[in-house]
């Protein structure tokens, strides 16, 4: 080694040593806690998400844009909430106690819950919120989830206790309140001056642009780690990533599958790969030709090369599906059904038997979530091998919605735990029941499942329901898409969620 190189080497190692030592000291937490907290305290967490001029601070009357959801999940609370693994924990609720047949549920609230304007949060506020969600004059996204509740039969027992009397038994009552559209607000709630119980409180809001919140210091559980939260609207995914890369935001919600590898390769950014419960079903209307015949539906399910669809449509960020809803998640775990695989010969045979050989059909899709268009295109290619011609029609959102529920063959997306997904998409009258499936045995099994409050017993019934879906359902559930987010390297407290998102729990995020 020459002298010059030796000096360079020594300088580098000395620098590395100093840096390394400082890093080690910092990571061991040797720095005084107060100093570390002061660093967090001083900062603003900046989050980019997609929204529009229709942005709202109303957790019930919302169009459900990402900006809205991120906002209301952080300024209001639910009675219960999803844990990262999709199990349900309690939030505002201290306990839910059923009667013997689950037709009466007593909700006890936690003590010491304060609203942002310093008032006590109690039973009256819960009753107000339930009535607001179920208000028929002002339709809300959450109303369908708790349509089994008659607001007239929700009564106050004492300041922190509410009694729900139901017409029919409902076992998973505590779970339903974890849904994002069932946030609780105080009596007299005014979305123009939003007051909640959440970890952040309102400072300013400009629809379609940005909103600012600050930490609520009287939060009823561990308070937020950052002082200020700023949520900015960025519609374009590339712009969102550029803002993250350029240091203008700390977290970006919308990451297309195509960009994921770039983020993974960048040391300044981290990719958050949430194994979400989001299915992108290709639905077949079971009440009209050609899918009225179960053999045609099964043939189409056998056409799908699921691995290829996940690989191409989701760039590998997902898991293969087995024509049953609900990713293998808590609380029931994997479904004991053999994985369906591509079998073109069997598909051809079934189509022949049904008299539908050489079928030509339109498949309607929309640029909704990533993968909706791509999966249709891949499936159309795969169908050629079975002699089926599929014309993929990519529609605009409003055009897709104009005929939603009536398309014979289309692509949709759904993300939720199993029973809520079933209620909305596999039962007659469900607003997402695009396959128009109405199977008497399945309906009876659902009724039975929701009447059971014991989780293990309920899971046994759920497995039977999934078997029925697998054998006769109207959806090709080829895969489950992961939800990808990105954040600045160095942020702590971010973990992947199955049903919720780390963006819904920003109080846990800190600048490590």
């Amino acid at each position: 080694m020459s002298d010059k190189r030796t000096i360079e080497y020594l300088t580098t190692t000395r620098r590395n040593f100093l840096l390394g030592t400082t890093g080690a000291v910092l990571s061991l937490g040797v720095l005084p806690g107060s100093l570390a907290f002061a660093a967090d305290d001083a900062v603003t967490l900046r989050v980019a998400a997609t929204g529009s001029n229709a942005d709202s601070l109303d957790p019930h009357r919302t169009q459900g844009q990402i900006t809205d959801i991120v906002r209301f999940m952080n300024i209001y609370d639910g009675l219960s909430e999803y844990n990262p693994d999709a199990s349900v924990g309690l939030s505002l609720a201290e306990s839910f106690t059923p009667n013997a047949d689950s037709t009466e549920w007593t909700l006890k609230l936690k003590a010491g819950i304060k609203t942002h304007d310093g008032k006590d949060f109690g039973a009256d506020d819960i009753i107000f919120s339930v009535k607001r969600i179920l208000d028929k004059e002002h339709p809300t996204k959450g109303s369908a989830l708790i349509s089994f509740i008659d607001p007239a039969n929700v009564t106050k027992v004492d300041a922190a206790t509410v009694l729900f009397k139901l017409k029919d038994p409902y076992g998973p009552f505590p779970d339903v309140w974890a849904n994002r559209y069932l946030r609780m607000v105080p009596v007299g709630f005014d979305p123009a001056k939003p007051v909640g119980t959440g970890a952040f409180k309102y400072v300013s809001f400009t629809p379609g642009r940005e909103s600012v919140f600050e930490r609520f210091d009287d939060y009823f559980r561990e308070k937020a780690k950052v002082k200020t939260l700023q949520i900015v609207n960025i519609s374009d995914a590339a712009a969102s990533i550029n803002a993250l890369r350029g240091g203008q935001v700390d977290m970006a919600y919308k990451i297309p599958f195509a960009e994921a590898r770039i983020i993974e390769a960048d040391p300044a950014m981290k990719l958050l790969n949430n194994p979400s419960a989001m299915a992108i079903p290709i639905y077949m209307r079971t009440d009209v030709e050609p899918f009225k015949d179960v053999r045609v539906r099964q043939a189409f399910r056998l056409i799908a090369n699921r691995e290829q669809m996940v690989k191409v449509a989701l760039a590998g960020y997902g898991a293969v599906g087995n024509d049953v809803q609900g990713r293998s998640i808590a609380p029931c775990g994997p479904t004991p059904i053999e994985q369906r695989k591509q079998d073109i010969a069997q598909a051809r045979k079934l189509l022949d038997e049904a008299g539908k050989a050489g079928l030509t059909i339109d498949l309607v899709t929309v640029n909704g979530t990533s993968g909706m268009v791509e999966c249709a295109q891949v499936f159309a290619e795969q169908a050629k091998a079975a002699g089926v011609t599929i014309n993929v029609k990519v529609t605009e959102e409003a055009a897709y919605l104009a005929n939603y529920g009536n398309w014979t063959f289309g692509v949709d997306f759904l993300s939720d735990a199993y029973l809520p997904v079933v209620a909305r998409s596999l039962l007659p009258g469900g607003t997402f029941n695009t396959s128009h499936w109405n199977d008497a045995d399945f309906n009876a099994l659902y009724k039975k499942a929701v009447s059971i409050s014991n989780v293990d017993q309920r899971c046994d019934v759920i497995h039977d329901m999934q078997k029925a879906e697998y054998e006769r359902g109207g959806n090709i559930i080829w895969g489950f898409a992961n939800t990808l987010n990105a954040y600045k390297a160095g942020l702590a407290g971010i973990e992947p969620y199955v049903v919720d998102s780390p963006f819904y729990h920003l109080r846990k995020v800190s600048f490590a």
Partner: protein
Amino acid sequence: MTNASRAASRTIRGWLVRRSALAILMLLIVSFLIFCATQALPGDVALIVLGKEASADQVQMVRQQLNLDQPVLVQYLRWLTALLQGDFGTSLVSRVPVTDILLPRIMNSFFIVTLSMAVAVPVSLALGVLTATRKDGLADRTIMAGSIMVNALPEFVLGLFLVLLLSTSVFHVFPAVSLLSPGKPIWTQTDRLAMPVITLILLQVTYLYRLVRGTVIDVLQTEYVQFAALKGMSPRRILFRHVLPNALVPAIQAAGTIFAFSVGGVVVIEYVFGFPGLGTALADAVGMRDIPVVQAAVLVISVTFFVVNIITDIVSFMLTPPGRGGRN
């Protein structure tokens, strides 16, 4: 004032009145056509507001609340009557006055377009004259190649390339995204406008300078320019006294069109830089079938075209020599 100048100003006044009356008629036709077009699109705002969960009853209720169940002509006349009273209406989606949504975006768009044109026009003139007088030289060929390359790129590719170059990967000079604070006026946040403004300038200059170059070359080849040269007039005097004024007219017309187009038509650039401008407001409103916002945005863009055309026509009229349709 002489009789001749009085007559000229009367002519201009008459011409302005005629143009304005025509413009108002044109705006009425445009607004009606846009209204009909939004009706012809499948789906409506009630479906967008309520989403997939909506029941038929709920959709019907929202349609009634928003008067969407009334005949198209009634809806249009209702909108027009309100407009004539200065009321642009309320957004069907966000339920706030249309002006609250559009005014800040109109200001933003006008500000960056004015800023970019203030740079692009003089630069284009200088480049146009420079390359025309050095036709087929190295500078001309290099600038031409660069300009064709920039124009050949789709807008978003150019935008992303500039982001990589100036914001994220090579240099870190400007913020990649125009995250404007809604509470502050746009002119106090110019650092955040650099990227869209640079992109606009590049697009405008590369088009406009070629036009100037072409017309200057044309004028340089006219007989009167050659005659002036033969008479021994200095090249500088020929260029600035005789060539440039004649070459300016098409450039001014083009600059006007570019200005008006840039105000509402650079949706892609607005998306790439997250810039809250008029183009994205219009595109979003069409997607959501928010008819009052669509109507107002189209109206603003149409009026911009009209006003800019009037101004460029007047300027061209002033610059055109007498005997070739200019002033007497």
